[in-house]
């Protein structure tokens, strides 16, 4: 492991990311558009729902609008991070192999990608968290941002796994949109969840614990430790899987 190689690669990855207009548009515009649509379309009617990760003991009464904002904040963070992570791994896979022929170790490139991803997670979670807080009073903004970072971590890991496994960009995007849409964008909605016929299935989807952590942080004074820890485990699972695939696919014979 060579620190200079990792830092050079990190600096180049960040330059490439920020020079792509579509990345900047996605980062800035998508959250604003989503939140605006929610703010315009949802009602302020209060809806009671229970926090699924707390054994059904805790009920909350929150407005539909505020709940939708939290729910969409999670969905936005998940979608953006999985797309960026997939793009990061997939886009340069051929030229990364050339860098390895020239001396880079797969782990050095992987580590620089993970560092870039971490920076992006921090940036997106802070931005989306602050935007959420701009729309309504969030009980614990710091924890809310942390739970969005957890969403980014879980879905970033998923994006890395998709990018490592699937060569085609279009197919990769399809995998990401499918899961992000079904999981973070639909099944984790607390209103849907409350009446779902098979709640156990929803428990095992990647956005379950991060959205629970976000709901706890946004509306209650309870501890979201359990949901946060489970999110970390989920993210680590995706990360380990994607790292394994990356190293196997990228190694060269010297």
């Amino acid at each position: 492991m060579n620190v200079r190689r990792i830092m050079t690669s990190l600096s180049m990855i960040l330059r490439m990311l920020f020079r792509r207009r579509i990345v900047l548009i996605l980062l800035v515009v998508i959250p604003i558009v989503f939140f605006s649509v929610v703010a315009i379309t949802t009602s302020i009617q209060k809806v009671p729902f229970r926090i699924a990760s707390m054994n059904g003991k805790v009920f909350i009464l929150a407005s539909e609008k505020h709940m939708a904002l939290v729910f969409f904040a999670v969905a936005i963070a998940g979608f953006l991070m999985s797309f960026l992570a997939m793009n990061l791994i997939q886009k340069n896979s051929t030229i990364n192999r050339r860098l390895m022929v020239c001396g880079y170790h797969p782990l050095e490139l992987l580590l620089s990608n993970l560092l870039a991803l971490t920076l992006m997670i921090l940036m997106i979670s802070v931005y989306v968290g602050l935007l959420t807080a701009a729309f309504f009073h969030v009980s614990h903004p710091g924890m809310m941002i942390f739970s969005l970072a957890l969403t980014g971590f879980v879905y970033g890991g998923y994006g890395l796994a998709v990018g490592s496994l699937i060569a085609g960009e279009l197919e990769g995007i399809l995998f990401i949109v499918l899961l992000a849409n079904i999981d973070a964008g639909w099944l984790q909605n607390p209103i849907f969840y409350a009446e779902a016929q098979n709640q156990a299935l929803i428990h095992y989807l990647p956005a379950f614990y991060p959205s629970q952590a976000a709901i706890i942080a946004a509306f209650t004074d309870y501890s979201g430790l359990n949901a946060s820890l489970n999110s970390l485990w989920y993210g680590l699972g995706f990360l380990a899987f994607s790292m394994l695939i990356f190293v196997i696919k990228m190694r060269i014979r010297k």
Partner: protein
Amino acid sequence: MILKAENMIKSFGKKKVLKGVSFSMDEGTVYGIAGENGSGKSTLLKILVGLWKADKGDFLIKGKIGYCPQESLLFSQLTVDEHFRYFSAAYGLAKSNWQSQSEFLLDQLNFRQYRKDKVSDLSGGTHQKLNLSLALLHQPDLLILDEPYNGFDWETYFRFWEITGHMKSQGCSILIVTHLLSEVNRFDRIYNLKNGYLE
């Protein structure tokens, strides 16, 4: 001897591309491998640089390899200078070494004026100049070039031979794969890859 390959075999599914390729190269020589499209030339090079694994056979390379792939493998959002910096980190070169070598290559291949430009804004010929320069940056002992002068104009083509001639005189061995061989007098030996064998 800088390169020795013995009985290299490679198949893709049922198609046997390399059926037993053996050859060796001495220091300070220029070898060419010619062959029709799809004859397995690039496959052989990819095995030699470590990108692919041969099904059977073995090879030994002494010293640093410089590899120029057939298609320009470059980062579209990075500039020419940033490529030199990125690849110098890969080679583990000190700043003074890679900077003087990149200045030399920018002048020799005549693309200094594009050093601050992103690859996405460059022409195909300039892509190929950068593609080749990245293989030469660390002054390798064995240069493996896959169709290196595709897209070069005449002047750059002759500059290419000037550079390789200079490198050869310093003991570098050069293996060039091409589907079109001209100026055979520039090569110390030319192989033809046909039906999976070198002739």
